[in-house]
């Protein structure tokens, strides 16, 4: 579809029909921006910051309770300001769930899924978007079924299959399952993007004697790298937060992920709210850091690879 875009770009509606000379434009750009540096921009900024602040309120409350002693929490409730900085909650959580081990498990599983699912998406999309194999729309829809099935519908059969293959209670089974589920989204997105891939580039490559495999890695892969990076980020974060399937499939503490460890703080009838908050805070951090590191990639554009 992005190729459709490249086609559309020059003729889009309201845009001027006379392509202005670039030097003229450059000269005028400065002036136009200067015009917009008025007070209006502060009003807009205030508005979007206000939205952001409102959205951060729950996080502020989490922060408040992560550093509050259980007694203080019980006495004054979740909304009071802590009278002193209480860090035992963090320490407790760290030791109780053996956080470093869980962190390693979560990184391992999410990382493996992010890479494998992106790879599978790339292969699928190569066949569907560039190869344009017959019935591609139906195939994409079929793949998307992975996203559409409610997870609880999959759990009994997957448990049974995992047991039969002796993969029950291994991280490998979780990786396999999520690679399948996440790559459905990747296949859909990438094959839409690839279907717009300029044929001229491909033809040039094959004239140079490159075969399909080489075209994939030497031409398609480099160009679509930004889009692939976005997929890696999404898959990592989505898998990071998955709860239900790891809960069922990973029964040993040694194999479990962070969200499952967090759940152990919520008992049958009682919960340990301060520790949950402290735990959430340090469980959230790796994903946030991951997001911030790769934020730049997001700027480059989810479909950036397809254009030009």
């Amino acid at each position, binding site marked *: 579809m992005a190729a459709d875009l490249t086609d559309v770009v020059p003729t889009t509606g309201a845009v001027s029909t006379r392509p202005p000379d670039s030097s003229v434009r450059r000269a005028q750009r400065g002036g136009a921006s200067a015009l917009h540096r008025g007070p209006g921009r502060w009003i807009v900024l205030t508005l979007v910051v206000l939205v952001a602040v409102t959205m951060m309120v729950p996080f502020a409350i989490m922060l408040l309770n992560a550093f509050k002693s259980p007694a203080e929490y*019980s006495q*004054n409730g979740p909304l009071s300001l802590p009278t002193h900085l209480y860090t035992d909650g963090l320490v407790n959580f760290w030791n*109780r769930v053996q956080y470093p081990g869980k962190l390693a498990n979560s990184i391992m599983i999410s990382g493996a899924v992010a890479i494998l699912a992106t790879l599978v998406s790339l292969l699928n999309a190569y066949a569907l978007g560039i190869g344009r194999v017959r019935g591609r729309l139906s195939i994409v829809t079929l793949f998307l079924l992975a996203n559409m099935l409610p997870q609880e519908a999959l759990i009994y059969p997957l448990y049974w299959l995992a047991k039969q*293959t002796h993969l029950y209670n291994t991280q490998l089974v979780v990786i396999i399952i999520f690679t399948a589920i996440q790559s459905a989204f990747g296949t859909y997105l990438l094959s839409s993007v690839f279907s717009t891939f300029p044929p001229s580039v491909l033809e040039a490559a094959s004239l140079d004697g490159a075969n399909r495999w080489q075209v994939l890695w030497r031409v398609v892969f480099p160009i679509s790298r930004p889009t692939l990076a976005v997929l890696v980020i999404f898959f990592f974060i989505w898998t990071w937060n998955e709860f239900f399937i790891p809960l*069922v499939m990973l*029964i040993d503490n040694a194999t479990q992920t962070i969200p*499952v460890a967090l759940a*152990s703080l919520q*008992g049958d009838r009682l919960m*340990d709210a301060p520790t949950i908050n402290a735990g959430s805070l340090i469980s959230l951090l790796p994903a946030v850091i991951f997001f911030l590191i790769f934020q730049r990639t997001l700027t480059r554009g989810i479909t950036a690879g397809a254009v030009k």
Partner: protein
Amino acid sequence: MKRRAGLLAGLLTIPLALAACSSGAASDGTSASGDSSAASGATTLKLWHYEGDTSAMGIAWTEAIKVFETEHPGVTVEFEQKAFEQIQQTAGMVLSSDQGPDIMEYNKGNATAGLLASQGLLTDLTAVATERGWDAKLSSSLQTTARYDDKGIMGSGSWYGVPNYGEFVTVYYNKDLFAKNGIEVPTTLAEMETAMDTFVAAGVTPLAMSGAEYPAGQLYYELALSKADRDFVNAYQTFTAPVDFAKDPLKSGAETFDQWIQKGYVSTDSASLKAEDMGLGFIAGTYPMMVSGSWWYGRMVSDITGFDWGVFNFPGNKLNAGSSGNLWVVPENSKAKDLAYDFIDITMRPEIQALLGNNGGLPIAANAADITDPKSKELISAFNEVLDNDGLAFYPDWPVPGYYDVLVAGFQKLINQSASPQAVLDEIGTAYQDGAANAG
């Protein structure tokens, strides 16, 4: 490599899956377990429970593990604390596999331990219980939850689990607020209502409540039990006779609940509150009373600092919601059954039981003299009062799987005053009858 072969094998067997699904679990279960006390020669005991490490059970069981390891040199206990939710939702799957523990804590009741027992996933402990004298240590209403028949209904049949502790629903009260309003501890339901009227007149909502979780259903059950006898409890819980929801005691339970809402004893905006909110409300001193379970006790001891508090049993009730605590069960696939029995035996010892009792738990086989903590003594004597009446009546949501959500939805309607008690009784009655028809 091996894994890949396994995966392939799995693929090939998919068509068989439809026919053979999970028959493995059932057939495993039939293997005899009679020679239970024969030494397994195992050098590890894989043990799972889901109690917090600062709870009474957590403290007592940590000690029991230590004792076990001293008495079994050469055996390591591989202990893992599990998420309640994980055990709750996946116990059947875990125990059908060969990756499960050798011994674990599990929820009592038809829908949990009963279901697993009827599918042959739990070891029959009847012989061991007699041999080791556990049956003599537990009073009859505590034994109810340990035994299940072949359909998985509690109360009769073989032993499939051993409880270590008890729990029951009682009334927590704020002594300072009682004194301030000149109110005495009520001994009858009428006195309780008078006391609550006094609070309402003083502008205080007397009862902390949570409509989104178990407390509302338990209050209704307490109110119903005030007019019930043991025959009703047996009929309601184990289907020994039909139960009519349009008649007392259930009718009066729902109607009184409704009146209490109308009289302002319970805040009308508590429909969405969770049990945690209710507890926080009482701990903060906002509400003078809270009708809830002994599981709060340890939390109250450690967290209430601003006022003096105590407990009294629901006024006038001979029967109270309550039961044995969760069970120790030995999975059929356990590789160290003999060690598991030894461990259970240790948890029943007076010194471990005393530890449990002194930390806010309710021991079931402790020597009274060993309980030294005064606060714990108060709770244990309240519990003994119930046990002396053989008064544990279990919980309202037990008989039918999934009944919990039905009760929550029903009593939210009463709290919100969006339905009449009759309509609610009708609704929860229908769900109960449907479930009873499906049982077994």
